[in-house]
């Protein structure tokens, strides 16, 4: 009998530190399970294993499984289990990965999340396994796991968790059914986040699935949280980009603009493709939302400021063309560059930019006229017939973009003032909640400021600076001037 087989069970499980002299399946030192562990795993595994070596391996897995079941109680036990699992990890598990699947049924994903995770992870890491089980219950298994796993346990092995999620995503993409991945991934995102302000790599993948499945509202739940902590820049860029696309799909241009703004102005030392694409959309959405593209704020990285425009020249030209205010010029410009826009997948947005030009011109009219005939509207906005003008005005009234009434008998449109009196209770609530939100934000800002002031590195820097030159209090702008 191999060494250690007769040893007592719980605390010592001998790792196969013996040099490999036999084929991999034999490498693992089988550890006997303790008498009180579940015996029924044995006969079933024996039944499946074709060779003795594999049988031995299976036994070890069973042992592992048993440990998982036993040690998934308190935090200490979990720590111990974790150690065991880490030891068992590697070629040992991976080698028998094909046979791991049935074991999973003995484990409860919620109670034994950590062990389940390890087994699952090694199973799905092998593409052979995936191909063998493609489209089958594997997807369901993984999805179930993700929805029902315990957050504390899986946080102990984040890499594996991410791996499993990514595999799920790939599978649903291969099956061309991204919608199947949405619910599990959403659950996964919530579980792996330590706080709702943290950005995980899963965010971007989740949003991508939502986009592909056209389930924009599903994406909203994740997008509504503000993100303040980011570990990896690539996550942020993808998150901002996909998030903005979702908002664009829902026509919430202002929020899309915020996300794209963050992507474009994030600190970066070299330009990346995501930012370039984000900037293209940024130009288009700004044109739709406010009719002009704001210049780069001072905190934009110099890399972005210098190079972005070079890569997105036609978009810059588009915005200058838009600025002239002539619909026909814009139209010809778009037609001549239609191919370029198509390849960027931005043609839909570009068409929206074109129609927004009418809107802007009509809105300008509301500032000058109280009533205006439909023919005059048509001529000043460069539309062809009064009927078209009527259609545009009607649509704008329905979308709430202008306040007006159309008198069809006279062919006149009367522009009204904004009826909002700021007296209703909804408005008061809205104002009140805004105030609360801003106060909370302010407090957060103050606390961060205090933390930084106590930070060692900061104090060192201030000290050294003080020796060289006196800091005048006026040197520090406490609030940006535009808020005055």
């Amino acid at each position: 009998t191999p060494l250690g087989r007769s040893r007592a069970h719980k605390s010592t499980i001998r790792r196969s530190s013996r040099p490999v002299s036999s084929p991999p399946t034999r490498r693992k030192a089988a550890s006997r399970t303790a008498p009180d562990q579940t015996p029924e795993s044995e006969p079933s595994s024996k039944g499946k294993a074709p060779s003795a070596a594999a049988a031995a391996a299976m036994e070890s897995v069973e042992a592992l499984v048993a440990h998982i079941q036993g040690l998934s109680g308190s935090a200490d036990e979990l720590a111990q289990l974790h150690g065991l699992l880490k030891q068992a990890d590697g070629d040992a598990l991976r080698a028998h990965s094909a046979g791991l699947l049935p074991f999973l049924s003995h484990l409860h994903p919620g109670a034994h999340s950590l062990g389940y995770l390890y087994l699952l992870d090694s199973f799905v890491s092998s593409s052979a396994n995936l191909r063998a089980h493609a489209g089958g219950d594997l997807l369901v298994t993984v999805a179930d796991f993700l929805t029902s796993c315990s957050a504390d346990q899986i946080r102990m092995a984040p890499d594996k968790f991410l791996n499993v999620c990514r595999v799920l995503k790939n599978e649903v993409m291969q099956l061309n059914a991204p919608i199947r991945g949405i619910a599990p991934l959403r659950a996964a995102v919530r579980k792996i986040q330590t706080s709702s302000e943290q950005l995980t790599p899963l965010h971007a993948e989740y949003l991508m699935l939502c986009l592909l499945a056209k389930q924009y509202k599903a994406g909203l739940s994740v997008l509504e949280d503000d993100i303040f902590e980011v570990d990896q820049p690539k996550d942020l860029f993808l998150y901002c980009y996909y998030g903005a696309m979702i908002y664009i799909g829902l026509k919430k241009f202002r929020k899309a603009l915020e996300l794209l703004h963050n992507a474009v102005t994030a600190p970066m030392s070299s330009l990346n493709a995501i930012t370039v694409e984000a900037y293209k959309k940024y130009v288009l959405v700004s044109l739709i939302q406010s009719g002009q593209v704001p210049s780069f704020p001072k905190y934009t990285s110099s890399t972005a400021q210098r190079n972005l425009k070079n890569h997105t020249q036609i978009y810059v030209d588009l915005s200058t063309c838009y600025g002239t205010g002539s619909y026909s010029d814009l139209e010809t410009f778009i037609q001549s560059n239609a191919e370029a826009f198509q390849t960027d997948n931005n043609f839909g947005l570009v068409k929206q930019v074109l129609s927004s030009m009418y809107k802007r011109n009509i809105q300008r009219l509301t500032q000058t006229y109280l009533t205006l005939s439909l023919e005059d509207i048509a001529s000043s906005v460069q539309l062809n017939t009064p009927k078209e003008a009527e259609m545009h005005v009607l649509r704008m009234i329905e979308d709430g973009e202008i306040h007006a009434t159309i008198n069809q008998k006279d062919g006149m449109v009367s522009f009204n003032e904004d009826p909002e009196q700021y007296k209703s209770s909804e408005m008061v609530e809205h104002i009140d909640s805004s105030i609360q939100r801003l106060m909370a934000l302010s407090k957060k800002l103050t606390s961060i400021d205090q933390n930084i002031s106590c930070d060692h590195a900061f104090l060192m820097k201030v000290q050294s600076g003080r020796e060289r030159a006196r800091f005048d209090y006026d040197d520090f702008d406490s609030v940006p001037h535009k808020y005055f």
Partner: protein
Amino acid sequence: VSADQLDVEAYAAQYSGRTRVARLLFIAERCGVEAIQLEALRMAHDEARAREDTVLYLDAVLKINSRLGPRYRHDQAWVDSVNRRAEQRKEKLETELNGYRTNLIKESIRMGYNDIGDFFYAHGHLSEAFKSYIRTRDYCTTSKHIVQMCMHVILVSIELGQFAHVTNYVSKAEQTPDTLDAVIVAKLRAAAGLANLETKKYKLAARKFLETGPELGSNYSEVIAPQDVAVYGALCALASFDRSELKSKVIDNINFRNFLELVPEVRELVNDFYASRYGSCLEHLEKLKPNLLLDIHLREHLGTLYNDIRHKAIIQYTLPFISVDLNTMASAFKSSVSMLEKELAALITENKIQARIDSHNKILYARHADQRNATFQRALQTGNEFERDIKAMLLRANLIKHDFNQKNWPGQRKMNL
């Protein structure tokens, strides 16, 4: 441009020196009426010949193009003899100057340079004249000399069109410690006004012209006539002053009244504007327009000035009313309702009139912004912007804290929990 009422002789009589010829040539160029053209050219030719200015003479002859008979044909012999004499005189002056320079007598050197400057000026070599006059600066001993130098430079600069120099030297002259002769002060003001006019600073130009004392008279005829001071001053004032300034500086200005008496139409104009008789005011303007287009300094600015005056009139007209019927307004301004509507729309877009047009009933309604609503709106908007900016800032601070560097990207997936 028809100017059948322009009496070329009377006009030219107001001026002397080079500007007379220059103005005559200008009129000849821009005027559409052949008779007046020829008249102007003839006078220019005679004047040039009398002054022995070959450059202007050749210019005049070219333009006349043999239309005026044998006496006005190109006389190369005369040109050559004049040039020869000029060369001799120039050499003489230069040797004299060199002599003075070796003797190092300041006063003589100064006068030598002045003489050369005068010579160049008389013969149309303006940049050399300019240089010579500038050179006298080092040899000026009294403030009178300085003033004299400044006046010369100003004269040349005006003709050269370099109005920055004009302003410069006017201020130099005004800063001399001695009190200046009233005529000189008036001249300086007029010159400053002219410089401002040409550089499109109409308000400043108006102020300077209005400050010009009546002592100017015809003493500055080599540059500007008193009628011009009146016209330029009045037009610039109308285009750029508001009502109170107009009243205090123009209408109640006793000194300026002397000038205005010389051009009664302009005086009528200003009074009409102030009394809100915009129709007749604009009519006067239209009547004066063709003659003013022939003025060498005013021509380029006339369009802008007229537009400004018209816009001011419109704005002032609508100011006291809550609602204005566009039809009455159109008849008051002698234009059609649609044209007026377009003008009004443009002015509203530029935020010069706070009103809205009821195009159906053709009424203009004054509009007073609702302060309370505007305040709420602004407050909410500021709150939103604040929120957005702070969140973005916190995110960026966090990114910088983790010291993001894209070189760290691939393969470094670690979550610090």
